């Protein structure tokens, strides 16, 4: 069934989204798992830390991302891996919206360009504000 468009469907978009979701989730969970193993390697145990370093802080998401990519993150590789896992997890649905906007623009479906741009704008503003 997978290659058949049953009408009302957007098969190319669906295939792209499906791959995107799988790649995003698998990459993210692998990073989380690596982070946990490194945590055990560094601290000798798996304890749930209430240390301030274990809580994410920053001005907003984009600034946080910028600092992370510029290597400004504290040199604690377990936390870095786990944080990267969260970031990739968050970027998965975010990229899904961008792909959808581009797809509907390519299909010249103005209604759905507006709908997906609205979703993208609200998410971007929220990520930029918090």
């Amino acid at each position: 069934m997978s290659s058949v468009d049953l009408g009302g469907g957007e098969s190319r978009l669906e295939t792209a989204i499906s791959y995107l979701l799988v790649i995003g989730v698998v990459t993210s969970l692998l990073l989380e798992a690596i982070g946990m193993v490194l945590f055990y390697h560094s601290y000798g145990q798996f304890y749930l830390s209430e240390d301030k370093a274990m809580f994410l802080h920053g001005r907003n998401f984009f600034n946080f991302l910028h600092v992370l990519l510029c290597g400004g993150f504290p040199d604690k590789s377990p936390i870095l891996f786990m944080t990267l896992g969260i970031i990739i997890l968050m970027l998965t649905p975010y990229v899904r919206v961008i792909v959808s906007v581009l797809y509907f623009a390519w299909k010249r479906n103005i209604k759905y360009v507006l709908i997906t741009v609205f979703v993208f704008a609200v998410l971007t503003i929220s990520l930029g504000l918090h």
Partner: protein
Amino acid sequence: MLDMLSLMLMSVPVGFIGSLTGLGGASILIPLLVFFDIPVKEAIASGMVTIIATSSGSASSFVRERMANVKIAMYLEMFTITGAILGATVTTIIAPTYLYFFFAAFLLSSFVKLRGSTKNDPVPCNNQDRISGWLELRGSYFDEVKKEIIEYRVCNALLGGIGMFVAGVAAGMLGIGAGAFKVTVQESVLKMPSKVSTATSNFIIGMTALAGTSVYLLSGFLNVTLMAPMAVGTTIGAIVGGRVLNKLGDTSLRILFFIVVIFLIAQMLYKGVMSL
């Protein structure tokens, strides 16, 4: 004492049960974390991130099989994400005591879905209203049981949107997917077929969770050592749960659901009363 390894191991059966009962992993994990004296706002923030993983993981196959309707999902996401941002913002500022009671109250609403699941597909929408028609809210899917292509249309797009906004507020506020509530709105108001409704709800939950996470990420409540084992464990459990779902009888699923929800409600009420 709870540590990352035991939390990950505990999250596997939780994801499994969450997937079987339709509650989702976070609805079960958050009360359990509270039971282990993890601060409720930390539990909620980690739950919200976890949902992106479990939802996106299960949604990928629904999208590939054309069961989730992408257009309907995009339309409804406008409402759920706005609600989720509002709900999550409220959680960051209100006293934790309220959250225990809100959580218990919201779990009660999942019984509506239990009652609803005894029925067959909702009444199909034959006369689509103008707005739903204009929004192209329709689709078709291949029903494996009936071995035929089922076409469907969506009704009451505006009212359904408002219902999804409420679902978004609850999801963002409590760090859960609010899947049972979303499915109820989609079937009762929007008249979507059950299978499409469940699949589309799963797809929407990931985006709603991202909106909630956007508020929690840097709020100072997101503990990476809590979130990482939860995400890995529940996603593994949910994948296994999704595979055995069709092999289990309805009655045993309902009994399991009932026991789990009663326990979770009692746990949250107890913590709420103790924190007064």
